[in-house]
């Protein structure tokens, strides 16, 4: 059998399951049940919520205690993450800092950077954006043009980044930039730098998405000074770090829960009795979801034991992505006689957000390419 297709059964340990009740209680207390939750991780933000979560120790929970973490397992984090998403909690503020920046700094950052940022992230008070894509790069990151020139005590950054979620509300951005001109080796000469988004030479320009929310931006750098101590890791090592950072974007529940609230509202529509056809739709979509969750928990188990399930992660993303796009399309054709406004709103919001489900973590073509490599085809 091929490498990467083995999602061996794995059960979340009791300490992880024990956490679940706590998270639910917290969510029941802090979420407004009349608001329209959205399980798409990118579609809601509340610094108040992030701070409350930080107070509970549920941001950066796998990090060492010395940096504000809780020394918890990936499996405990898994439970917290899926509970937040399933409830449609507004996780937008701290999401990237928790899932990407923190791990990046832990692995490549200086001790000073860790001490400076990690505790603030973990307490829910410091939010990061990612600056990777530029206009015209798309998935081809090696073609970026933003350039930081060495100056006394630091670097002078010029250029622009695009699709940076929440750059208008976040505090910092980790940007991948050129610190040397492009050479034959397309991947050489890039570095990751921490940009203060409040810097007066940084301009953040909102970009509205299909549902009219300005959740992502284009960010312009006009002679932005980056002190030497804000370079993450070694200058020139940016590509290696990014490759590894992409690895953090694993195969968590955010890969298949984006449309979950539609399923929740749909199941409520059927509560008073429904046709076999309607039951079969709910059953079909639930069977997919449960299977994806099981695959995802298998991967969490592999991660916890130090494995690097690259193909498995791509498989979950690919199957999960197809599933997330399937949900609203199947459900909309099964509307009940008197659908609730809440159901219809949830459905519309999901349809409007659906095109973004494929964007993050690589397009469909790129993901399938990763899987094809795992199958030995390339």
């Amino acid at each position, binding site marked *: *059998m*091929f490498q990467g*297709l*083995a*999602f*061996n*059964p*794995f*059960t*979340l340990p009791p300490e992880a399951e024990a956490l*679940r009740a706590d998270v639910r209680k917290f969510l029941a207390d802090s979420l407004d049940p009349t608001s329209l939750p959205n399980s798409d991780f990118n579609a809601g933000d509340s610094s108040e919520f992030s701070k409350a979560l930080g107070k509970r120790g549920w941001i950066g929970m796998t990090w060492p205690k010395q940096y504000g973490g809780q020394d918890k397992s990936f499996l405990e984090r898994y439970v917290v993450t*899926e509970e937040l998403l*399933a*409830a449609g909690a507004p996780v937008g503020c701290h999401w990237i800092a928790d899932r990407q920046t923190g791990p990046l700094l832990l692995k490549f950052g200086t001790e000073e950077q860790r001490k400076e940022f990690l505790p603030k992230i973990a307490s829910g008070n410091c939010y990061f954006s990612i600056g990777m894509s530029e206009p015209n790069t798309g998935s081809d990151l090696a073609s970026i043009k933003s350039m930081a020139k060495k100056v006394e005590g630091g670097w002078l950054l010029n250029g622009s980044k695009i699709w940076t979620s929440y750059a208008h509300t976040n505090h910092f951005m980790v940007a991948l930039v050129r610190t040397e001109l492009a050479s034959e080796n397309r991947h050489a000469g890039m570095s990751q730098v921490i940009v203060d988004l409040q810097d007066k030479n940084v301009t953040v320009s909102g970009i509205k998405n299909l549902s009219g929310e300005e959740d992502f931006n284009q960010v312009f750098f006009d002679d932005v000074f980056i002190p030497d101590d804000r370079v993450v890791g070694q200058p020139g090592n940016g590509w290696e770090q990014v490759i590894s950072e992409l690895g953090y974007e694993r195969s968590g529940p955010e890969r298949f829960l984006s449309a979950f609230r539609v*399923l*929740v509202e749909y*199941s*409520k529509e*059927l*509560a008073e009795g*429904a046709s*076999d056809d*309607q*039951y*079969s*739709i*709910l*059953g*079909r979509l*639930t*069977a*997919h*979801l*449960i*299977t*994806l*969750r*099981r*695959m995802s928990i*298998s991967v969490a*188990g*592999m991660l916890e*034991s130090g*494995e690097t399930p690259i193909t*498995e992660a791509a*498989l979950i993303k*690919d*199957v999960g992505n*197809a599933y997330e796009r399937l949900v609203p399309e199947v459900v909309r054709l099964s509307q009940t006689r008197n659908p609730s406004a809440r159901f219809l709103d949830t459905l519309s919001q999901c349809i409007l957000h659906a095109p973004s489900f494929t964007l993050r973590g690589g397009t469909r*073509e790129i*993901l*399938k*390419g990763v*899987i*094809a490599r*795992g*199958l*030995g*085809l*390339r």
Partner: protein
Amino acid sequence: MNYLSEHQVLIQDTLNRILEDLCQKQTVDAAENGEFPSALWEALSETGLTLTGLPEEHGGSGGDLSDALIVMKGAGKFSAPIPIAENFLGRVLCCEFGLSAPKGIATFCDNFFSITPDGQLRGSSSQTAFGRWSETVVLIAEHGDETYLCACPFEVFELNEKNNMAGEPRDMLSVETKLTSDQFVQADGVARRARLLGAALRVAQMSGALESILEMSVSYSMERSQFGKPISKFQAIQQQLATMAGEVAASIRAAQSIEISKDLMIELDVAIAKARVGEAVGVCTDIAHQVHGAMGYTLEHTLNHRTRRLWAWRDEYGSEKEWQIEIGRFFSGNASGNLWDQITLLA
């Protein structure tokens, strides 16, 4: 990381060795032409693999359902043309409902017969799997509201040979006979239990077959050249095989859930697995045949043994749609709870 026990790995290895030896393409072809693969069956019997998952006190090899499912997955992977699942199903029902162990190869018959309290049995079944090769036919018969499980010697039936679309025996059996009191027993809930176990066995067989057609498709794409390069190098082929890999991986994982299912959850786990795997069949067979081109459309390539069985099996013991309906009822009916709470109860 392997979730199987040492004992189960042993089962798997022994089984694979026998199948690689005795279940090559010609065996499957010969069975389709009416020849019972006795060498294969005997080798499996000798190693106890035809009785895996049945308690020793009932003549079995010991172990539980999850052991039996490992055997089924392997058998499905090789399209083993034998009543391995049916023999298990007939026997396990007899064991669970209090009939003594059937004699010889057993099969189970999915239709309803009628019976009187003193054992007068009549009726006919339209498609009994491997009926012609069995010595004991286990079946369900009704008397009013009462349900009985019966184990009848094959000789009492009139046989009319039929095959399913995979060329597997699905015989019509008719009977009018008097059973002795040790041949039948009142068995409440046996129909539901039989459907559940039947579905579980088919899921395991299908997951093996799906794994196999993915392997075949990947190999074939690397061997087959067109326009000067292996077709595996074309992006369109890669993307399709990647899609198929996702469906196969999900199917295997769904099938494994039955192996580790807790008793309370097994109905739901089987339903989810049959629904998920059944849905994967159409996507995967379509891509496998597309990759194999004309060769896959012939009986010369062994792909057909897998795909035709998958098409037959996905409809047996409940299509994906039937199981989806049950899942949907479960998750919507329980209106007091909330959907997510219930989902997380499943390991």
